[in-house]
């Protein structure tokens, strides 16, 4: 798989999870950085090896972080991810998901209608 294909895949997965988490709202891609080299100590001239994407969703009239992160986790699981709803930590609701070197984190917060889904592709030589 090329990095461009990995990026497209990740973007589609995040949007699908966002749609399942908050039905009736269309997730918004707020960051799609393109390839970056995550290695701080590299010489910086080598291949840019990961893509990082963030999607936001939410229904301003509905504050249900627990239900929404659970729905996101279920959708990711159905799509072949190993997704886990983590214990709530001081109002922080979280899903961590992994698949074939991809990492996704879903964050929701008590009292906050917005849900954030962010993901990274695996490192792929370009």
């Amino acid at each position: 798989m090329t990095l461009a294909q990995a990026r497209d895949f990740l973007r589609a997965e995040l949007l699908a999870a966002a749609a399942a988490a908050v039905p009736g709202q269309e997730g918004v891609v707020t960051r799609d950085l393109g390839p970056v080299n995550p290695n701080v100590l590299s010489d910086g001239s080598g291949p840019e090896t990961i893509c990082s994407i963030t999607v936001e969703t939410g229904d301003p009239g509905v504050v249900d972080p627990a239900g929404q992160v659970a729905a996101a986790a279920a959708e990711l699981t159905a799509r072949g991810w190993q997704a886990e709803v983590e214990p709530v930590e001081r109002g922080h609701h979280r899903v961590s998901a992994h698949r074939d070197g991809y990492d996704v984190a879903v964050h929701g917060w008590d009292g906050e209608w917005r849900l954030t889904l962010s993901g990274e592709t695996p490192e792929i030589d370009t």
Partner: protein
Amino acid sequence: MTQAGQLDLLIRHVQNLPYDVAAREVHGHFYDLPPATARALAKERYEQVGPLDGAPPELRYVANRRILVDARRTLQAKVAAGRATRAQDTRFRTLDAMLEPVSTTEDVDGRLVKVVHDRRFLYVDPVGQGRMVELLGEDLGKAKNVATLVPGLNNTLEKTAAQVDRGYDLLNEAGPGTAVVVWKGYDAPLTLEEAMSTECARAAVPLVSRFDAGLAVVMAPEAERTLIGNSYGSQVVGLALLAGMDPESPDGVHPDRPVLIGCPGVEPSVHSAAQLVPPGKVLYVARTPWDYVSYGEQFGPDPATFPDAFRFETRGAVPVRGHMKYFRKNSESLRNLGRIISGNLDAVTRAAQTTPEQESKLLPGVSWAESMRRLPRSEAAAPLAKVFDGVAAARKLSVPAKHKPTDGARNRRSPQRPEGPAR
């Protein structure tokens, strides 16, 4: 006297004042101006207002954007005329990317709506390797928690995109009400040979100190500050903390929650948190297994070995190993950074006090950490760094530049755009 003339006087006046006094005077000067006058001044005298610590952030965003626009225009003329060097061409595309808006979402009449806004630069310097300081997340005047990330080796203006990406991950971890500042406000070492010296870090200390003082006057009074130094950036932060403990020093930073990760040491004589933070404050430190930079202890004992520091866990369900993975998504390392920033300190998980030898054990009785520790002080260190730098330079010549979209909107237009810089 004109407003511009008064500004000139102010800048001259505060130049040699203690940083905190200077920041307060600058802040007071702008606070007393009618908003329209202050904004007009920021537009007219943008080169002065852009870097002016203590000035209202909103004015600095306006001023720094003008600095970027000017620099981009100058380079654009050279690029269009085919007279740009490779470096100028790369810088032109970097500035172009920095001027691209960023996206967020808002509640508009009960619907989730995408909105775009300009990036918020508190400082930019497009010359040389380039410097920039960018605010992410909540406005400084509203944030409950403000974190500043100081990156390390090899971060030119072209490479700050990856640091900004880390900044967004910190924001996501820390949650609503958080602001993250990516502070690449210094000239970082660009080669291993340079990184073997403290010269860049020492030059950065007054810069980060002045910025820290300016931050204090524009934040909400009850907001709490976290200062994170990563890799060589932790040398910068470590030296700035050390200066802050010296009443004779004009420099120094005073964060509520200082963090040093992947640290090559501060000073040979610094071996405890008590030398860097006053009583009652906790120094948070981290070292992943196989972090060869920490093992090397180039500049002094690794803070992760300080008996009175809080060494937080980096390992969890997501494996983290080596110097470059402190910000890996879903890692315990990134989670702990979020907990520290948000003040959820009881939840920060403590790491076992393992030694480098235990962490880098290859076979019973055989580890490579000790040889790493000896390397920086050996006669071979400098020649080896030169070889590495030479290989890096050769690779740089052979790798084509790449395009860097900054958001979805930009990405959709990318096929029509020229190739961008490598980062």
